[in-house]
């Protein structure tokens, strides 16, 4: 088991290395001299020369990568040009908001996707199955920013039940926080619910056709016990693994949802940075999100290995 974990960890190293190289190269696509851009309108030659030296712009590309990556490994993602704050600080400030949104979205996705998938598999080719499949197609085909606008129209403008935008910290007012997050969380979780529903259906259909499920039925067990105790327990692991991977997707999906509902999170940070040409922030956020994604992938693999006796051999 230890060998497997070590091998899996070792495989992550080149992936992370190439990710950092790609993100570093992205910055090189930028037109113009960063030192001139940073120096501002007056573009004093001494200032530009000082900045070029400070930013190691006179060094060859691999050396500059070396400086950059050594900073990243110390947790230094550089400074935001616009806000004049370390990128690390900005990420630390915005991440909790997005994590809360993503966690609520995942909860909603699990609560809708897994039961819908089970019902769809158990009642295959019934009206429930068709309904669940229509829901999945709806979830996969609806742009979440449009769904967000429709929900604002219904629940905020027409019914007046929920606030249309804004964010209240849970430490300030938990009820107001949940009221402000429920629509964005649903919008974000909708597509993931559809993905989970499809995978649950497919995994359950496979398991429901196995010998041990037939044996359980032959023993006279009640159908709900057969489905929930025997079938679901064996089908759930790939679904949970997928859920862990989809959590990474939620972080990027949050970009649009936060924009629609004016939530000051991670997604809004990257969009604002893009429009302010604050490339250190863009680079930092992309690197951070990718690392989370890689770590989640690794954890999902390890969890899968731990609970699957056949893999442990």
């Amino acid at each position, binding site marked *: 088991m230890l060998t497997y974990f070590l091998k899996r960890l070792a495989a992550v190293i080149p992936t992370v290395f190439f990710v950092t190289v790609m993100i570093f190269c992205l910055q090189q696509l930028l037109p113009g001299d960063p030192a001139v851009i940073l120096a501002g309108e007056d573009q004093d030659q001494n200032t530009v020369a000082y900045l070029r030296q400070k930013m190691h712009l006179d060094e060859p590309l691999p050396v500059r990568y070396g400086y950059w990556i050594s900073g990243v490994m110390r947790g230094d993602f550089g400074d935001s040009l616009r806000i004049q704050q370390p990128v690390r600080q900005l990420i630390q400030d915005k991440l909790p908001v997005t994590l809360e949104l993503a966690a609520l979205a995942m909860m909603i996705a699990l609560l809708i996707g897994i039961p819908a998938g089970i019902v769809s598999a158990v009642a295959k080719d019934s009206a429930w199955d068709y309904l669940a499949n229509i829901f999945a197609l709806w979830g996969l085909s609806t742009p979440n920013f*449009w769904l967000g606008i429709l929900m604002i*129209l219904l629940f905020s403008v027409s019914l007046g039940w929920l606030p249309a935008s804004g964010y209240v910290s849970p430490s300030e007012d938990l009820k107001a926080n949940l009221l402000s997050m429920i629509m964005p969380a649903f919008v974000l979780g909708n597509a993931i619910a559809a993905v989970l529903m499809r995978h649950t259906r497919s995994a359950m259909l496979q398991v429901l056709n196995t010998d041990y499920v037939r044996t359980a039925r032959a023993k006279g067990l009640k159908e709900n016990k057969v489905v929930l105790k025997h079938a679901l327990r064996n089908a759930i692991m790939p679904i949970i693994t997928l859920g862990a991977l989809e959590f990474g997707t939620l972080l990027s999906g949050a970009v649009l949802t936060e924009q629609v509902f004016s939530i000051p999170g991670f997604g809004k940070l990257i*969009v604002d940075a893009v429009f302010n040409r604050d*490339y250190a922030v*863009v680079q930092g956020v992309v690197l951070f999100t990718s690392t989370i994604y890689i770590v989640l992938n690794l954890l999902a693999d390890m969890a899968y290995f731990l609970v699957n006796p056949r893999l442990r051999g």
Partner: protein
Amino acid sequence: MGFVILFVIIAIFAPWLAPQDPVETSWSAIRKSPSAAHWFGTDELGRDVLSRVMWGARASLLAGLVSVSISMALGVPIGLLAGYVGGWTDGIISRLTDSALALPFLILAIALAAFLGPSLMNAMIAIGVSATPIFIRLTRAQVLAVKVEDFVEAARAVGNPHWRIALRHVLPNVLPPLIVQSTLAIAAAIIAEASLSFLGLGQQPPAPSWGSMLNTAKNYVDNAPWMAIWPGLSIFLLVLSFNLVGDGLRDALDPRHK
């Protein structure tokens, strides 16, 4: 399939089908609700929403087709090379692909579009490049399965050069799953283009695109909801159609998915 054809016809014939100029403003018709004169209503500058939706189909379909063409043009040859040659070439390409897949699709597309500058063409390049790793991985996996088949062995035994075996014998046999994936990728690319335009990184105003129309519409949702309903519904129907075509093709080409 019917909806896909309908949208293609609308996109091609938009100059003749659209009742009005999509960028022509009218100060006397600002945010008018749907009527006989303006079936889908008008926007904040008095432009006809129906005409803008029709012209917007061009941007969306173009983005879907061009982005996926870029992904396939890059991804299929690289995947074919990795799968067919194997060894170190495969190892390096696979590690790079894994790394690219670790970058969340939309975040990567946003970052690329930001670095390249906001425009429809750059958005298409950003989406195409971001989706390339999926095609590399899929092609490689298919090539690995096909290259050990008897007919490839036979082609090798009669002395065909490697490039000929790869292009004439392996490639045609890996195409069906790639066609299915490309249909689904078009749906994803249409949503991605709408997302980038919604964020202001795609089609630039005043040129119509469904994403940028929704971006404007969100500011007027309380007094002009039609501005949001029609472009959003168009994205939904077009993406749904491509997803259904993709699912249908997959079922037809791979009976295990039935």
